[in-house]
């Protein structure tokens, strides 16, 4: 036990005496949450749009006011012709243009029918889609208001309710994703590097020639990263609750338990990598391509798994982050209990034991 304590103490010395390591370990989660929370968001806000009003009547004016009032759009003035629209698109001043034809209000009143054209810059298809949808919704709203209580025969009203995330906040999606990513980086990458560094520095040679048991070395190497990861989980949760206003709907205890399970899985993977590589560079390369990339690509956090081709969907099952991401979303956002995520939990636990067994089996009691 004394050996073990001394070893863990030494590991903490390594970590805290290297400012870069400390920053990566403790600063990165905060930075990532803030970047994802405030800079990288797929919500469309305050997009500049142009309006070409060829009619200039009461109807167009009130529609324009409504567009302007919504928080999605900022209206770029100075558009008086189609040429101006073209020009503004080219200069990147606007993302969408709304064109009212001549006699828009007149047509609306006398023929009960008028047209409005939406021209969007589809070089970014997602943004174009979102903007046209928003604009259509605003127009529909306006139409509903002027139709008023006049009862039309046979109308079907769709009524939408966005469950669990009524405001469609991006944070609900990326907080679980960032948690998976950060834990992956901290646990897998840092653990792999720290063991391989001992090999590179030659200190592993002395450790192996000493009476300390290899299993003890492995566990002592992992313990500091386990503790720091728990700190990371706590800081991410605090940030998301108090800064990004993402609630924790489920049990905090369950969430913590699942996080520790995922941390252990990542640690086991890191140890496995370190047991099979000899240089820090290789270890870093393998952790990044073998773990970090799949975590970003195949966990469902960036790209929905349902839309992937079947082979990729199958591969995604082998990515621990996918299961953790599902669990966190379910527990944190939907507020479900263990009875709904036991399957994912079992899969994750299975992966953990498998990786740990491999790591221990691969750890050599000799140099070669």
């Amino acid at each position, binding site marked *: 036990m*004394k*050996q073990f304590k*001394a*070893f863990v103490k*030494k590991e903490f*010395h*390594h970590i805290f*005496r*290297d400012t870069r390591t400390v920053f990566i370990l403790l600063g990165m989660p905060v930075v990532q949450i803030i970047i994802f929370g405030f800079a990288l968001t797929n919500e469309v806000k305050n997009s500049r749009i142009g309006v070409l009003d060829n009619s200039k009547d009461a109807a167009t004016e009130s529609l324009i006011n409504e567009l302007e009032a919504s928080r999605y759009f900022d209206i770029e003035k100075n558009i008086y012709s189609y040429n101006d629209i073209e020009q503004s698109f080219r200069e990147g001043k606007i993302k969408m243009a709304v064109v009212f034809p001549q006699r828009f209000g007149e047509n609306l009143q006398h023929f009960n029918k008028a047209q409005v054209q939406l021209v969007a810059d589809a070089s970014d298809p997602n943004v174009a889609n979102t903007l046209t949808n928003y604009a259509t919704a605003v127009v529909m709203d306006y139409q509903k208001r002027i139709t008023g209580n006049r009862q039309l025969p046979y109308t079907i009203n769709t009524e939408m309710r966005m469950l669990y995330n009524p405001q469609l906040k991006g944070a609900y999606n990326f907080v679980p994703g960032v948690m998976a990513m950060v834990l992956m980086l901290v646990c897998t990458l840092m653990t792999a590097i720290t063991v391989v560094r001992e090999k590179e*520095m*030659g*200190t592993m*040679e*002395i*450790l*192996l*020639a*000493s*009476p*300390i048991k290899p299993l003890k070395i492995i566990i002592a190497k992992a313990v500091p990263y386990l503790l720091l990861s728990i700190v990371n989980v706590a800081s991410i949760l605090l940030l998301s609750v108090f800064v990004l206003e993402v609630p924790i709907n489920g049990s905090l205890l369950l969430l913590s338990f699942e996080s520790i399970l995922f941390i252990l899985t990542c640690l086991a993977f890191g140890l496995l990598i370190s047991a099979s590589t000899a240089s820090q560079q290789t270890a870093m390369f393998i952790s990044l391509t073998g773990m970090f990339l799949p975590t970003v690509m195949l966990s469902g956090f960036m790209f929905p798994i349902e839309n992937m081709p079947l082979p990729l969907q199958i591969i995604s099952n082998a990515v621990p982050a996918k299961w953790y991401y599902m669990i966190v979303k379910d527990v944190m956002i939907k507020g479900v209990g263990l009875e709904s995520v036991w399957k994912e939990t079992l899969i994750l636990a299975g992966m953990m034991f498998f990786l740990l067994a491999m790591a221990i089996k691969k750890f050599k*009691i*000799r*140099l*070669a």
Partner: protein
Amino acid sequence: MKAVTVNNIKKRYGAKKPFVSALEGVSFEVEKGELFGIIGPDGAGKTSLFRILTTLLLADGGNVMVDGLDVVKNYKDIRERVGYMPGRFSLYQDLTVRENLEFFATIFNTSIEANYDLVKDIYSQIEPFKDRKAGKLSGGMKQKLALSCALIHRPSVLFLDEPTTGVDAVSRKEFWEMLKKLRSQGITILVSTPYMDEAGLCDRVALIQAGKIMSVDTPEGIVSAFGKKLLAVKSDSMLHLLNELKACPDVEDAYPFGEYHHAVMKQGGQKELNNYLLRSGKAFELKEVTPDIEDCFMALMKN
């Protein structure tokens, strides 16, 4: 019981042909309390041998007993009782001197206090810097710290792999003094070195070359086994002189040695070589010298 028994050890690297053969049937024995040197150039197989002795590598053939224990079967027991200092400085550079020593003491289930008397002489020299990071020490001080760490659990056998490589002459001398003191404490010491001049400081030496032991004896024994006349020659044109020496029928071998060339004589002696060299009419200086370990090493390599 011998401290170390090495019997026909073989080691090769690489799974497929051609193998790189590091050790080709090495055998020797080390007595308890001996200061035993393994002398050989880089690539002779010294580090492979040390790693096999310290249970870090498995040999492909042969068997090794350290302190009466088999290095394969009883590797755990051996790891408790031997001290090992690898050729490369292998301590934690970001830990202080004191932290390194403390860490290794704990890893070996002991404490600095328990064995302080053993490391006192060495450690007291670096103790003024005990709060300095190990990476910031000078080469000689690193060496002393590494030795302290290897000694802190009072090993019965101490393995030092090229401890003096890259260390200045004064520190090297000090280091050997320390080894002599340790030997007087009853610790068996195996030390490898590429420096032939250090052979004389050992009780017995094994000369190793290309994975084979050429000779195991006391330094005096090795020198007295040389058995041939050795002459040192110097002139203004050393390259020309070397060619001339090699062409001489009485000379068995000639090689540069410091500011002289050494000539090993097949027959005859100073007079015959003097006559031979006078024929070229160039000025030279000739004297008879007693061979040292390096001369013996060269001679053994030729056979």
